[in-house]
């Protein structure tokens, strides 16, 4: 019998002894507007995390503490939410994030060729960031664009009907910009 991987546990472990990183004015205003939508401040957790991420690209431990303070939650509660969702990054990411859809329709239409080409081009594995901090490669579950498979999201833009060559072109363009 082969060994069994029991769980997909997250490897990140937060350190709450770190200092709080106070929310800046923009974050404070945007989060306050979201809290207003709900009867309980906790309901704004995901939006608050997204607001912070939009500003600094990811969500640091210090910012988790700040959000917790603002929403009257414990840092662990906020972190339990942050680590649950695919699109909240608890580690720094590159200036460009490339999310390649690895679900079934894109897989049939050539995902593996894309993944192979792009990991070779950048010399990093999926889930890693280039040493210069330019690009992070992420596999992502079904993007709901199966009629245009295979697809990827590059810098928040959905790119469709990719070939290894067209994806590499996008990667090189992203590298030039950063």
């Amino acid at each position, binding site marked *: 019998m082969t060994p069994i991987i*029991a769980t997909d546990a997250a490897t990140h472990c937060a350190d709450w002894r770190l200092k709080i990183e106070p929310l800046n004015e923009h974050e404070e205003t945007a989060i306050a507007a979201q809290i207003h939508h709900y*009867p309980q401040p906790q309901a704004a957790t995901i939006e608050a995390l997204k607001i912070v991420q939009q500003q600094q690209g990811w969500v640091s431990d210090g910012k988790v503490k700040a959000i917790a303070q603002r929403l009257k939650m414990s840092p662990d509660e906020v972190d339990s939410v942050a680590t649950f969702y695919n699109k909240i990054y608890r580690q720094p990411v590159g200036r460009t994030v490339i999310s390649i859809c690895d679900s*079934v329709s894109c897989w049939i*239409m050539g995902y593996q060729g894309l993944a192979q080409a792009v990991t070779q081009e950048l010399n990093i594995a999926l889930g890693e960031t280039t040493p210069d901090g330019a690009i992070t490669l992420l596999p992502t579950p079904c993007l709901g664009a199966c009629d245009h498979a295979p697809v990827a999201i590059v810098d928040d833009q959905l790119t469709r009907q990719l070939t290894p060559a067209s994806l590499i072109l996008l990667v090189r363009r992203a590298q030039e910009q950063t």
Partner: protein
Amino acid sequence: MTDIQTINQPLSQHIKADGSVTTLAEYQSNYGYQGLTKALSMSPSEVVDWVKNANLRGRGGAGFSAGLKWSFVPPLEKLPGQRYVICNADEMEPGTFKDRWLMEHDPHQLIEGLAIAAYAVQADTAFIFLRADYDLCAERLQHAIDEANAAGLLGEQLNEAGFSLTMLLHTSAGRYICGEETALINSLEGRRAQPRFKPPFPQVSGLFGRPTVVNNTETLCNLPHILYHGIDWFANLGLGDDNGTKIYGVSGRVKNPGCWELPIGTKVADIIAMAGGMQDGVKLRGFLPGGGSTDFLTEEHINLAMDYGTIQHAGSRMGTGTMILLDDQTCVVGMVLNLIQFFAQESCGWCTPCRNGLPFIRQILTDLEAGRGQHEDLEHLLQLCGYIGIGNTFCALAPGAAEPLQSALKYFRDDFVAHIDQACCPHGNSPKPLNGLKKEAIL
């Protein structure tokens, strides 16, 4: 007024080939928001009965009657106070892209439908729970909500009885389980999206402990038309036992993947024909009728009607109605492994059969695909499908994940055996590129 006989594609009638959005003026020029006006002139319970009699079944996959779902909300006299409606726009079922199509092109249709649902259950707040990656939908929906508010179509005092409605767009942060309605409610409350125990059902105690109705995007998009044109018109749209139209989709190695609004009960073969048939040089072997969590059917089933009853009778589910095709150049073991990998990753981790069972299955399939499989693995896989099946798990995620696997073992057992006998994947572990045929040339 448009001739009622000509409207046989109500949900997609405003969708333009250039992909541009339907403006409020365009929407209103063709009976837009008149379904809501009609609903507001009726009593809420009349609206519930109207939709119940229309037999509008949930288009998110379960096929439960929308009107019946609403009727479980206690009447306002018995349970006064806040109540909510939520549009489930967390479309994340592998191979499904129909709701994106509806929201990107005609956001007002959804807003009107959601407002009708809110009135029917007397909710004064409605949320659209949108998945994280649908940026264009988010932009267009927010713009449309702002337009509707400015035009007085949403907001305070919408009818003489004083019905008011606040509509809010909530964008998620990405997780498949958010599509389960109680997990969605947890997510909307700012928690981990783990499903809740039922009962109590959300209609009694849902969002923030208040009565809540969650409906799928496509389901809600049907409402303006049902209210405006009536029940008989809606019943006549369907070909078989079910009423209305359905947004069907096809993805995989076809000439023209996409989605189309067709009468519910259209034959599978006719839907595949809409996609231009298979690409040159590939042959159809099977299909998942309605997304990644439905059982495979095969070529012998392509003359079946795509409706809830027929597909269920054949041993699968119509699900979301967006098919994924398996062709003869794609490895079925690899395809199932890909699906199981998705479900293992997206499991919320709450209950043991799902959290541990799916990675276990993934490991066995990985070995099979790599040529390290043994004959007893196949029995073991079937046993595991039972362990994670209905009744053994907290929600439907793991039983759904078992569906493509158990049916692949039934219909394509020879493929699994070939992997074991040849000690490798006969497809070279991956779908082979078509000979010299570039994808761009096809599309």
